[in-house]
């Protein structure tokens, strides 16, 4: 439960324009759908989380695990380290770190064509 004007605080503290696309507030709590410039997504998500807000980010990237052959070609291309290896060298994507279409460096490097960027209309669902 959050009682502070968190949205306003985030906007003021970080100077980022947050566009509220939809909002629903009742006695149980509130839920807003917010649009944030892609250059500030990580910062804003982090700021909201620090204030106790649950933030869910829609999938920006989709990896077809059946097509993926765990070759690791994508690993060295990711500028935000969203691709990692498990101990058994299987490849795992951190979908929260991935910044999606502003980047997309990994997509055409995958020889199994297992990576797809997901079409985005809004950048963050903030609960």
């Amino acid at each position, binding site marked *: 439960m959050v009682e502070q004007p968190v949205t306003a605080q985030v906007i003021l503290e970080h100077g980022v324009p947050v566009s509220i696309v939809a909002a629903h507030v009742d006695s149980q709590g509130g839920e807003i759908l917010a649009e944030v410039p892609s250059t500030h997504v990580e910062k804003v998500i982090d700021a909201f989380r620090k204030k106790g807000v649950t933030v869910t980010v829609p999938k920006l990237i989709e990896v077809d695990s059946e097509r993926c*052959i*765990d*070759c*690791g*070609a*994508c*690993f*060295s*291309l990711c500028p935000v380290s969203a691709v990692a*290896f498990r101990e*058994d*060298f*299987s490849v795992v994507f951190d979908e929260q770190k991935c910044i999606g279409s502003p980047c997309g*460096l990994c997509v*055409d*490097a995958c*020889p*199994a*064509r297992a990576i797809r960027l997901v079409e985005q209309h809004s950048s963050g669902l903030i609960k």
Partner: protein
Amino acid sequence: MKKLVESSGVEVAYKEVDVVTTGTFGAMCSSGAIINLGHADPPIKIQRAWINDVEVCHPGAAVDLYIGATIMSETRPFEYGGGHVIEDLISGKEVEVRATASGTDCYPRTKLRTTITKDDLNQFYLLNFRNCYQRYVCATNSRDEIIYTYMGKLLPRFRNASFSGSGALNPLMNDPDYETIGIGARIFLGGGQGYVIGEGTQHDPGNRFGTLMVRGDCKKMSSEFIRGAAFTKYGTSIYIGIGIPIPILNEGLAKKTAILDEEIVTDIVDYGIPRRGRPKLGKVSYKELKSGAITINDKTVRVSPLSSLKTAKRIAEILKSWIENSSFYLSAPAESLPTDTICKPMKQTEEIAFVNSVTHAAVTCTEDEEIKAVAERIINHSVNHVVVTDEQGKLRGIVTSWDITKAVAKGKRRLADIIIRKVVTTKPDESLEAASRKMAQHQISALPVIDQARKVLGIVTSEDIAKLLGR
């Protein structure tokens, strides 16, 4: 095995261990499948044939075809190729076969179209003429643009690197004198059992770049271990899963199979230079490569494998379980792989011209000069391009006669406002063909020639190249 030798020594390992299994799953371009369709009625002697729009080779008799992994689909080039056809067939999918022929007295038919699955084929054998490289290089890129190569996508100015091979798990690395791997050695191939039928092309044992030629029944394989691959702007290929058991016949083999990733060293090669002899930037071990980061020119660079290390391990483990439950028997080779083969470069009978043979002095200026002075220089020297440099002669930009004309038309007064900063350049050892291609790609008519430090050595223009071709 590596751990056992490390903890208890070679003698104990030799006594306790009977077989060491190895594995690799990487892109192996020199691969393909030989198929026999069975005869048609009326019969056809195929001249040209396509499977799912991928042209297949007809090198033999009427209905024998060879599906080459790197041949690309005519309708979906770079996305679908021979490797994908083979994977589709192995998966049980239906494929479309088209063929044309000029017809003979005994084979009157000139056209054929049919749909088949692997069960409709007589023979469907993997016949790969270069697989399982003993080790491979680490690739990186010095150029200013992304390059797409068979070593994957390489970012500009050494921002990433790639490597291939399973390192200490590689079959040939564990038996480097080829004592147990030879013609007739039974192996894990694509999920089924196959055989080594000899050394592969470009076999280079002296430099520990040995290769294998293999054969196996595709009808018994699995698409988990045979996968078509699409390398953007490079071509198609196929990922092949191979595993070879090494019987520990003597203490020497116990020692050899204890080889570790840190002992397998390879070169970091600059794929940005499109020549046969690419610059080597240092050495690196497979341990460093598998760690995900290496050092190039004192900087940390992230490195991707291109082989699946997970699947390589899985193959070695599957092979081990097959041997343990008696569904796989090792076979002694009929003949060992040669250890003295030399790999030669191509003999070339035509000379290739390089940029340094047509480079001439560039007309230059500095950024603080007047537009008028630059325009005068263009007229006095009868050129179209003036290279902008700093006091040390390093490249800062370029100004063309078109830029001067544009300045006059738009009333611009400062040279700094019209200089083109993003300059496409060339190096003295680049081929004229590559330089020409660059000019066409960027729709420009000259390339400043620079060295590694971006010092301007001269200029080459499209006119120079045209004159050379005219000769």
